[in-house]
């Protein structure tokens, strides 16, 4: 399984990379290669030219902004997994990373790579959608961005245009003191793409009421989706309300059947995992000390 021949270019700057991409519609970006190279090996993708962006300084690094953490696209998944800033400020990302692929694939695979690959059951896009992250793009015309919700438009399909590449992901940081996350996924084996996954983040006030809640489902349909459970804000997140809100929000959930799981399974288990994820998030938030406690 050898790839079809291609040229290899390592540009010195992001601007040069975009120019190269714009100039050649058969050019593709490579960073960690963990999802691209298998496709090349099976000749499912046959770019004439690979533009290696892995070492571009503009794409590296994790930056703290006022209310967000900006993760450079070429941040390796293993790096992000160990990063204390991410653990503190984007706990949902830290929570899912051990479930992404295997340790060796996380040593090379990048955050931006997973986003650009847009596998419907991938964990990092699920986090991006659930938290309402922004996908930052580098283009020949300068930087641009797209809400994660709009960025993923189908299985392995994003709104990226020729000449563009993902430069960073801007994850919002919740300003609340008591924030907890929950995450569950089900797959045939631990390393496999999930049949369905649920990610939740909950913020509680000092009295234990929900201030903010975010919930997303991956692997069910052709892209990760956020479920609208905003009705739960202000309440205590008791089991009955949570179940009802999730059932309502998931009623229209798109689910597909394939070799590994039926649509019925995906829909049913999505609901169950959402409930568990919210419960776990609530529990984790409640464990954080209240003011004056």
């Amino acid at each position, binding site marked *: *399984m050898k790839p079809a*021949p291609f040229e290899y270019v390592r540009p010195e700057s992001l601007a040069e990379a975009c120019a190269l991409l714009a100039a050649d519609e058969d050019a593709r970006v490579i960073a960690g290669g963990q999802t691209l190279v298998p496709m090349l090996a099976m000749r499912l993708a046959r770019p004439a030219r690979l533009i290696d962006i892995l070492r571009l300084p503009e794409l590296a690094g994790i930056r703290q902004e006022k209310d967000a953490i900006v993760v450079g696209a070429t941040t390796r998944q293993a790096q992000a997994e160990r990063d204390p800033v991410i653990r503190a400020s984007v706990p949902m990302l830290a929570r899912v990373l051990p479930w992404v692929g295997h340790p060796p694939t996380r040593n090379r695979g990048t955050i931006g790579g997973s986003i650009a690959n847009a596998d419907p059951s991938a964990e990092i896009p699920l986090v991006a959608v659930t938290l309402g992250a922004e996908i930052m793009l580098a283009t020949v015309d300068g930087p641009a961005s797209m809400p994660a919700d709009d960025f993923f438009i189908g299985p392995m399909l994003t709104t990226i245009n020729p000449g563009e590449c993902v430069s960073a992901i801007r994850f919002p940081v919740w300003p609340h003191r008591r924030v907890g996350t929950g995450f569950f996924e*089900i797959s*045939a084996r*631990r390393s496999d793409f999930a*049949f369905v996954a649920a990610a939740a983040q909950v913020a509680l006030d000092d009295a234990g009421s929900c201030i903010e809640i975010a919930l997303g489902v991956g692997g069910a349909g052709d892209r990760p989706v956020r479920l609208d459970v905003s009705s739960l804000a202000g309440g205590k997140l008791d089991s009955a309300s949570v179940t009802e809100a999730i059932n309502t929000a998931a009623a229209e959930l798109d689910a597909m059947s394939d*070799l590994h799981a039926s649509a019925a*399974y995906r829909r049913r288990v999505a609901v169950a995992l959402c409930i568990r994820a919210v419960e776990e998030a609530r529990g984790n938030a409640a464990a954080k000390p209240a003011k004056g406690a």
Partner: protein
Amino acid sequence: MTADPATFRFVSTNRRVREDRRFVAGRGYYVADVALEGMLHVAILPSQHPAARIVSIDASAALAMPGVHYVLTGDELAAATDPLMNGLDTPKVQRHPLAVGQTRYAGEWVVAVVADSRALAEDATEKVRVVYEPLPFVINAEQALLPDSPPVHPAHGSNVLLDRTFVWGEVEKHFAESPRQLAFRVTWGRNSTVPIETFGVAASWDPWRDMLDVWASIQMPKYPDQIARALRIPANCVRVHQDVDVGGSYGVKRGIKQTVLVAHLARRLGRPVRLIEDRLENMRGGDAHGPERIFDVEVAFNNDGIVKSMKIRALDNAGAYAGRAPFQLGKPIGAIVGPYKIESVQYRAQSVTTNKAVQEAVRGFGQSPTNYAIETAIDKVAAATGLERIEVRRRNFIRKEEFPYLIPSGSSYDSGDYHTVVDKVFAHIDFAAMEQERDRLRASGMLAGIGIAACLEPSGGNSSFEPLLNEKNTTTTWMDSCRINIDGLGFVTVTIHNTSSGQGHETLVSTVIGEVLQIDPDLIRVVRPDSLACLPSNSPVGSRMAIMLGGAAFHAAQKLKTKLTRIAAHQFGLAEDKVVYASGGVGDPKSNRQLSWIDIVNIGHRNFHLLPEGMEPGLESTHVMQVPTGDRLPENGRVQMYPCHSFEFHVVLMAIDPVLGKPEIKRYVIGHDCGTVINPHIVKGMTLGGVAHGLGAALLEEFVYDDEGHLITQSFMDYLLPSSREMPKVEIVHHCTPSPHTVFGQKGSGESGYLGAPAAISAAVNDCVASLGISFNKLPIRISAIGDAIADAQQGKPQQQAK
């Protein structure tokens, strides 16, 4: 058994497996490491159609590419070589390495491109233009049985390769007499052992010596013979290099089509040629799939749970060509009643062609699927009678004192003590505590259950299923061999005459010979000559090598020990029974005269005048051994198959989250009795590896074809292999019931774990869900199927079985 276990010095001790040393340093010698000067590389163009007529092949664009040397078509290859051998008498089912006239499964190899590098060869395959005319196809075995199904081989007339019914004993009478009966179906999905190394072969033709040299990742009896036949050259013009390390096989690396293809090209092009299958070629068209079998079973029993008679119809989906696969319906006949005293059996073996990839011999050669059917029957008898599943087994087990035990189909089981193994396992587990743990899991909201399975591993490998299923085959010889030479300086070198794929044969043989000659096994060198310098061997198949290679090594060593003793006795002027051989030297106990090893070596190599009359000089011995039983042809559909029968008993505690449907093994215990263990490390490894294969077959692995006849599971992304996360920690409880047929009492263990794990794991799943009134009768049992069935049951809907 010849040797006394109480006196073992090396056998059964935890010696290191010597082969490990080169592998941990990355110094194995696999076929992909074979670099021959001027070697060319092959890539394959497969068909995308389940069945199609080949209208035309245009290779001109491919041949024009730089670095491309040749494009081989099926027509050219078929003209230059004979078709590959069938096992059954089905001469109109012809198989060639490249499709001839039509292709018969999606993924079948159509064209082979030869180039300077594998990458260039792959580039060139994309430029070969093949025009196909799609034909009707059939992929379902039950449909293939129907007379109007499109025949995969029109000249053969139908899709039926084999349809043979055996009746052993008074089946109908026993059914009529029995107060209870039940019937059910189980299906074993198409999977295989899928080694991490694909099949590869390199060949080189020397016209000046008329010699074809072959290096391959091979595990195949009579490999040089089959190459010679196909290429129409004398068998002594084929030299297979058996010192190639094989990266796992577990039966499937028979690679004859790949070899004939490459050998023809080497001869045609006058340059060495190598084909290493890539993973796609291997999965789709490597012809290494395993059994795909539907069992329809009926049992006749009484209220005490005693099973008197059994009927089995086994329908196997062989794929597009016959090969050896149909024999995988025959081998289980040698243990058709499992470990039970079932008095009569009717067995209908059916094998059909369909437009799927071809089966190859998979670990156990059909025994594991058959055990799945038998154990399901026993569990259902338990459910019907209300007896405990283990109690039904105890009541039906052959008892220790009843061995040797003749089963209805003609095989005699050598020895066993099933009740003791079960007792030992239960004592180890503390079964009552396990049941409490199961109940605690249930109380916590999980589904939980315990699965058990008891089965035999017939070992020793003769091939008496061949004449049983094909009367034209009169093979009763299944031999293996060993040769020992003590050189002029007293060092020992042994030759073995087979390839190995991780079974530790070098360690096995040096341990056995060290035991007999009472010298340190680590000083014994074991080498593998090429096939022309070899004695006969039939390869590590049928779990035979501990018995056969161990036996041949033992007897060769005994011969040498006798010679050493005779030489020394002759020096002392004494009869042989008056001297004592000990640790390589010989002594006269009365006079305390001693001759050391090196003294005797010197006499043997240098002092002809001191040798006994008529003795050959030198110190060399050879033994070619026939399998201990099974040296007769079948009579009336009965025949003795393998000589030795190991036993295994699995207990699995499992929990299933009722919403997620994911089975989780909480505890896995296997009782294992393979007689005397020559090397404990090796046997432990076989058992644990076998359980892993079984877990894959039960829960994860399947070659799935869609309704259009295309293989969906083409890569490791969809064909799911168990990783360290999926495997529970397996506890082995050991027992030893020696075999009377073998020199140390050893039985085989090459298939251990695999033969019972699918049955045990499936039983565990079913025990988990039994309270919901559902069960699963098809392997693999997927998470989604479990989840959906549970959900339907909880809503009062009837269960939909997986297709």
